[in-house]
């Protein structure tokens, strides 16, 4: 297997507005030294709570957000070091699908133009060829060619997400970054899109970087899963390893919090692991493990020393005291 994407020590900081007259600008560390790899033809899911830095990680990895440091090797080439114009040329290899189907399409453009635009920008083929390809893509994602000339607001959310996907596929990308592709959709529609994504992955041999806060979605689509907490990956493993034998208490908390059809009130289900509170602020994150304050297993060391992401048993985990849920 070949590495498509190799992200090393990626760090992203945002400067916040100054407090006080001459105070320094506080820095928000949205992504803190994150490393992961993605192999060709596989799907990596990134899960985590809101604000944990999922989107930022993905955006920095494809250089749509500026990284403070780190490397992003795409097929061995460091994207972050490329000159602007070369990066532009590289964009055809990496495409994006967004969360909000309502704001991800330019409301003033016809969908045919939206889907064709990447080809226009890359100056691929003749106009007829481009339009023909748009037609093909429309069929591929399950839209009708007679809808080509409509405007985005004339489509439903699910259909818009299909248009987004068609646009993303236009340039035959190798990597598709999907940022919460279904979380704005109704469950019934979610299934349509997830199935479509799964189908495309197989048919076109795509690799996915899929972001979601819904473990169910990730489990359904991804081969590997990384769990983020406050800008760091706290656990990274194959799907089965992660869902069956999670080692990090935060992953376990996520799993126990996710609603499941198997847990019935009628059967007197009581959540086994309760964690309290909210994640700490990404401005001045704590020196030790970010989860320590909410963690049932936390000891003094957790508050002082940041655990590294290491192979520990079934998963790679960043925890001083990894292990299965204590009974």
């Amino acid at each position, binding site marked *: 297997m070949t590495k498509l994407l190799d992200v090393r020590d990626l760090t992203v900081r945002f400067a916040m507005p100054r407090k006080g007259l001459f105070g320094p600008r506080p820095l928000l560390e949205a992504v803190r030294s994150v490393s992961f790899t993605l192999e060709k033809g596989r799907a990596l899911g990134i899960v985590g709570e809101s604000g944990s830095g999922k989107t930022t990680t993905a955006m920095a990895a*494809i250089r749509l957000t500026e990284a403070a440091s780190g490397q992003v090797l795409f097929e061995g080439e460091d994207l972050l070091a490329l000159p602007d114009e070369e990066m532009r040329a590289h964009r055809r290899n990496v495409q994006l699908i967004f969360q909000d189907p309502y704001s991800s399409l330019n409301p003033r453009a016809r969908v045919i133009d939206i889907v064709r635009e990447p080809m226009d920008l890359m100056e691929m083929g003749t106009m007829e060829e481009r339009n023909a390809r748009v037609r093909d893509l429309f069929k591929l994602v399950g839209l009708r060619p007679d809808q080509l000339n409509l405007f985005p607001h004339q489509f439903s959310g699910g259909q818009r997400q299909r248009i987004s996907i068609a646009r993303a596929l236009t340039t035959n990308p190798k990597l598709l970054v999907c940022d919460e592709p279904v979380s704005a959709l109704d469950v019934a529609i979610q299934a349509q899109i997830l199935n479509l994504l799964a189908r495309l992955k197989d048919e076109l041999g795509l690799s996915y970087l899929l972001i979601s806060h819904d473990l169910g979605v990730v489990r359904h689509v991804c081969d590997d899963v990384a769990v983020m907490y406050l800008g760091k990956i706290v656990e990274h493993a194959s799907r089965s390893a992660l869902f069956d034998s999670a080692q990090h208490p935060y992953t376990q908390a996520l799993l126990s919090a996710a609603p499941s059809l198997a847990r019935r009130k009628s059967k007197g289900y009581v959540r086994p692991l309760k964690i309290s509170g909210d994640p700490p602020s990404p401005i001045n994150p704590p020196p030790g493990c970010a989860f320590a304050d909410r963690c049932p297993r936390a000891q003094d060391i957790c508050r002082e020393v940041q655990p590294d992401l290491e192979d520990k048993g079934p998963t790679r985990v960043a925890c001083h005291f990894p292990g299965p849920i204590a009974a």
Partner: protein
Amino acid sequence: MTDTPDYKAESPAREAWRMFRRNVPALVGVVILSFIVLATLYGTFFYAGDPYNVVWAPHERPGVTPEFPLGTDYLGRDILAGMLTGGGPTLAVGAAAAAITMVIGITLGSLAGFYGGWVDNLLMRITEFFQVLPALLFAMVLVTLFSPSLWTIAIAIGVVSWPQTARLTRAEFLRIKELEYVTAARAIGARNKRIIWKVILPNAMPPLIVSATLTIGIAILFEAGLSFLGLGDPNVMSWGLMIGANRDYILDAWWPVTFPGLAIFFTVFAVSLIGDGLNDAFNPKLRER
């Protein structure tokens, strides 16, 4: 499948127009404005008269002499002729000033909103600076400095009113910049220029068009105010000038100030009805998704 009802491929602009057409006050505005514009453009064709000529005794009441339906002013000049010729400059200054306002405001606002950082900081400080100067006073100074002509007036009005447009544009850019379709454009390799002009600006247009409409109204009032104070172009008949010129005689003759005042009022009124109509037409809350 019912998921896409049989829509026509209707562009947002067309849809806005459809909404606009249903808006009765806005249509009233269009009718009034068209009437005024036509009257100022072609009125002299039907009613020839030199507004500068002293043609009759001063202060003839309206309706007394058939030749001068609106009476005469303090010099004995025909008020109707003045109304018909005076509208052109007033409207022209309004439109030109609005255009200048929009050009400066949109340029600076979009640069500030798009690039952010120090560009934004610098441009916004300049904007704030201009907002601190009381507009009319500043315009008066400018007009006197560069001697009154239609152009200087239009430029002065533009120079004092752009900050609002700049702020609006900036706000729109800031809002739209964060939307995912802009990221999408960048993700497919669009350059900044294209993103500004082809992606963000068209989407920022609706509020800007509304604001442009309102700016025309404000500019007309501004021009009238300046002319009223005697800072207008004295060789160009305008409604404001008529009011200013006849103002000393209001106790004897109400009509030479009343008619031009009404004309200004109706013009601005019509323009703002249209502006409101456009605002409603562009407002997505008022139409279905």
